[in-house]
């Protein structure tokens, strides 16, 4: 699987897709349940803190009140920050955290968890909308191909033939777009997995400096 992923000609498009999904996601509207989820991975709408954290509870904690935590969280969460760098930043935060080190590290995890979970939910909603667009596009392709067959059969004049050729072009384009998007689904579906991995790595880094 991974080998084919690297060799497809649609790579730039695929990389752009997660960003696209994010930028057009209208908040956290409840995802419609049912047949829209296109990924082989099971749909897990939200992450559970217990799956990555065995420290103190993070329920009802306000991590934004700690300005150092609030400043560090976006840096740690950002996927452009390599995980090794993020780990170093966690360690240096722990060194300077003072007497309330354990509490502040808990806040830090709460922030990371909160932000990654929210981002992940937005992406998952985006994936379902993406899937919805694909369904609509496939329906359009179906009706376009019926229309084309009819037009070709009936075409007598040059004008009719030109019109049929135009229809054919449109069908070709829509099919190309559909295929490219379909191939991108595998990569798109990896995004929630990658975010879960990041959440876990950060949780582990924070817990390692808790003792």
């Amino acid at each position, binding site marked *: 699987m991974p080998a084919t992923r690297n060799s497809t000609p649609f790579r730039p498009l695929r990389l752009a897709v997660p960003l696209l999904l994010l930028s057009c996601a209208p908040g956290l509207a409840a995802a419609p349940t049912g047949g829209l989820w296109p990924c082989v991975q099971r749909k897990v709408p939200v992450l559970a803190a217990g799956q990555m954290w065995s420290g103190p*509870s993070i329920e009802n904690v306000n991590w934004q009140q700690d300005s150092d935590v609030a400043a560090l969280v976006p840096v740690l969460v950002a996927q452009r920050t390599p995980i090794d760098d993020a780990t170093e930043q966690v360690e240096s935060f722990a060194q300077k955290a003072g007497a309330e080190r354990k509490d502040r590290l808990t806040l830090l995890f709460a922030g990371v968890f909160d932000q990654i979970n929210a981002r992940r939910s937005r992406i998952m909603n985006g994936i379902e909308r993406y899937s919805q667009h694909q369904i609509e596009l496939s329906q359009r392709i179906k009706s376009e191909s019926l229309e084309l067959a009819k037009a070709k059969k009936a075409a007598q004049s040059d004008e009719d033939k030109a019109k049929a050729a135009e229809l054919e072009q449109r069908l070709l384009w829509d099919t190309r777009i559909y295929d490219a998007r379909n191939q991108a689904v595998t990569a798109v579906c990896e995004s929630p997995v990658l975010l879960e991995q990041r959440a876990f790595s950060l949780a582990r880094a924070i817990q390692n400096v808790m003792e």
Partner: protein
Amino acid sequence: MKRPIMLSTGIAALAGLLMVDALPAQASPRAFVTNERDHTMSVVDMNTLKVIDTIKTGRRPRGIIASPDGKLIYVCASDDNRVEVYDAATLKLVKTLRSGPDPELFVLHPSGNPLYIANEDDNMVTVVNVENNDLVAEIPVGVEPEGMGISPDGKYMVNTSETTNMAHVVDTSNNEIIENILVDSRPRIAQFTEDGKQLWVSSEVGGTVAVIDPATWKIIKKISFKIPGVTDDAIQPVGVRVTKDGSKAFIALGPANRVAVVNAKTLEVEKYLLVGQRVWQLGFTPDEKFLLSTNGNSNDISVIDVANEKVTKSVTVGRLPWGVVVVP
């Protein structure tokens, strides 16, 4: 003045050479980990906890076991439909064995021969002579056979079938099924205790581990798991290991990312250790001081200090680590 210096350098170099020579004699145990997505096997030095080699295997390596003397490593290359046998010292492929289609898990007779292989695709257990690759028997079992266990005296082989939700007990003297034990949904692993007095079977979807008495083949207890902050459907028991002295059992809980520590006398869960993502299989070091877990989604193995019940380290291996075995 120069000469003595050179001489001492020479002696130091010689000593260095001797030390290098002496190193293998210290024989640090080595862990072999199959990486399902990379089609490789990582070799980890258990003293330094570093990956010392990565070996290319057949496609989709999953189940992994060692010969009783620890000299050979057997690997199920699931997508190549064969078992590969590696020399644990030279790390070279020694031979391949027939396996039947889609081998996932297998178990060796305690004597080291034959090998019992579960074939997920055709509802069979294939029995192979590891010396000459002869097909000894094909035993029809339930749908999607998976976990494989064998009693320490070699008299009983147990196979679990994922879809039938049963543990099938096979008499190894005639390869006939003598008992079918209904367990919870999608049984994964069957593991006898060292004294042969208990059989532990994990059920991935059912979320339980059944402890069975081989004298009657009845379930003594079903162990279930509860972890604060983790939803029940994320608790999916897979790997099972019990210490030789029968005091502690460890259960890998899949996407709960925890290993449960069970008091094997009272059958009560005592602790949950946070390891890595999607913890799958477990393997003790020969001295049982450490237990290793393969964590499929975080691409690492966790090292658990057995006496202190603590995770001491994680070691990054290949992608989707699946099985692990440690040899002296």
